[in-house]
């Protein structure tokens, strides 16, 4: 963004929103929105407490496990769908359905199937993240340059070589794009899982703070969550840009 020829640093619009938040908070318009300064103060108070650290750890572990599963299953399945007509026709309708389905409604079913523990939360996270990863990996393989595949074949590439030396790299920008959106959806999944299934982690904190009307506590946790999700997605976007630079079409 530039104003009068001055280049403003990235995300400087956030400052504007922060100021607005502070003003609304101080005006006492609603108890629901305390001033930002108060929220930040609360944040520094609670961030070192065992309750917070514990919640953070529970959330991060569940989140990472869920994302790992989504990536480890989603990428190969997507690549397979992109390469094989048969697999594609069998799976594509389901993937599309789950991608747009209101997954929150499925969470009670998961509870019945997998119990009220960590397992269900991890599966919820995976369920939120995996579909877009599958679809993007599939798209990445589908758009691959036909002549690259023929080139590899003409020089005698084995199917495994073709997979690791051509398909994977050619699809990498799309795959990373899918993982980035999957990660963002996974954040949603892990919080919904913690809220609905067993009240642990950040879900427990939200529950605790909002039911006790501790609004600045509530916002503080939310802020941490946003910051983490944002940092993760920026990191992946950065990776994505680096890769698509090399994979750039002619």
């Amino acid at each position, binding site marked *: 963004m530039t104003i009068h020829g001055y280049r403003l640093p990235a995300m400087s619009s956030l400052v504007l929103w922060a100021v607005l938040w502070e003003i609304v908070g101080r005006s006492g318009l609603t108890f629901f929105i305390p001033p930002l300064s108060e929220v930040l103060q609360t944040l520094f108070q609670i961030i070192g407490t065992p309750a917070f650290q514990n919640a953070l750890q529970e959330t991060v572990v569940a989140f990472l496990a869920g994302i790992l599963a989504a990536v480890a299953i989603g990428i190969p399945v997507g690549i397979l769908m992109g390469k094989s007509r048969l697999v594609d026709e069998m799976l594509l309708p389901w993937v599309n359905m789950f991608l747009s389905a209101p997954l929150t409604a499925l969470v009670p079913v998961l509870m019945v199937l997998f119990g009220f523990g960590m397992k269900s939360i991890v599966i919820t996270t995976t369920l939120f993240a995996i579909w877009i990863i599958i679809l993007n990996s599939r798209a990445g393989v589908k758009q691959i*340059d036909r*002549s*690259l595949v*023929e*080139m*590899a*074949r*003409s*020089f*005698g*590439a*084995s199917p495994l*070589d073709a997979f690791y*030396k*051509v398909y994977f*790299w050619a699809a*990498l920008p799309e795959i990373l794009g899918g993982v980035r959106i999957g990660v963002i959806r996974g954040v949603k999944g892990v919080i919904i899982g913690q809220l609905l299934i067993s009240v642990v982690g950040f879900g427990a904190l939200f529950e605790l703070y909002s039911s006790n009307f501790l609004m600045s506590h509530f916002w503080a946790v939310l802020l941490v969550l946003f910051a983490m999700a944002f940092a993760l997605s920026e990191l992946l976007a950065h990776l994505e840009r680096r*890769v698509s630079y*090399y*994979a*750039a*079409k*002619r």
Partner: protein
Amino acid sequence: MRTPASEIAVTARRISKNYGAVEALRNLSLDFPRGQLTSLLGPSGCGKTTLLKIIAGLLEPTSGEVEVNGKAVTGPGPDRAFVFQDFALLPWANVLRNVAFGLELRGIARSEREAIAEGYIRNVGLAGFEASYPHELSGGMRQRVGLARALSVDAQVLLMDEPFSAVDEQTRRKFQEDLLSLVQREAKTFIFVTHSIEEAVYVSDQIAILLPRPSRVSEIIRPGGFRNKGADQIRRDPEYLDIVDEIWASLRRYVE
């Protein structure tokens, strides 16, 4: 004048190819003499690429067969290398790895294949660009990378699908001259697809003219006398000009 069988590197015998209802090739037969350059020339869509890919083993003919050195082709093999019209370079790999990629797929150790690749990179005039990526190169340079990759696997037969069509006219002329000396230097059989009559007459020992679908060889022309006159004399040679006119006369009715 028939060439003895041992002098034939590649034979296409009664090749037909259908794409669903589209009949691309019908009963096409053609011999490719060893150590020479044969051009496939014909109007767009007549099946030149199809024939080249069948010879490469990338496509299966509906009927008929291709023999390379007397052995029937069942798929791609180390005796043939392909130069692609759109270069087909790995965008995420630098020039050195791209040129060595054919050898990499054949399981040659890294130091050995890179040594070989470096030699061919010099040969095609790209020394100093080993670490560059394809998007940093011009179209002409990219095609040199594709050519070096095909040369470094040392196949006896080089298949080239309109290799010069994506480069500018000056580069193209330079490439044509280079190709002539390449054919003389390397004891390889070249099969060359082109749209350009002038290009075909300039670089070929033998020109096969294909007619539109379903395609057969309608005529084989062997430019003779001016071949050894030196690169810059050819374009002024009366025989060269006559052959160009003759081919145009037989092709023009398909262009209307």
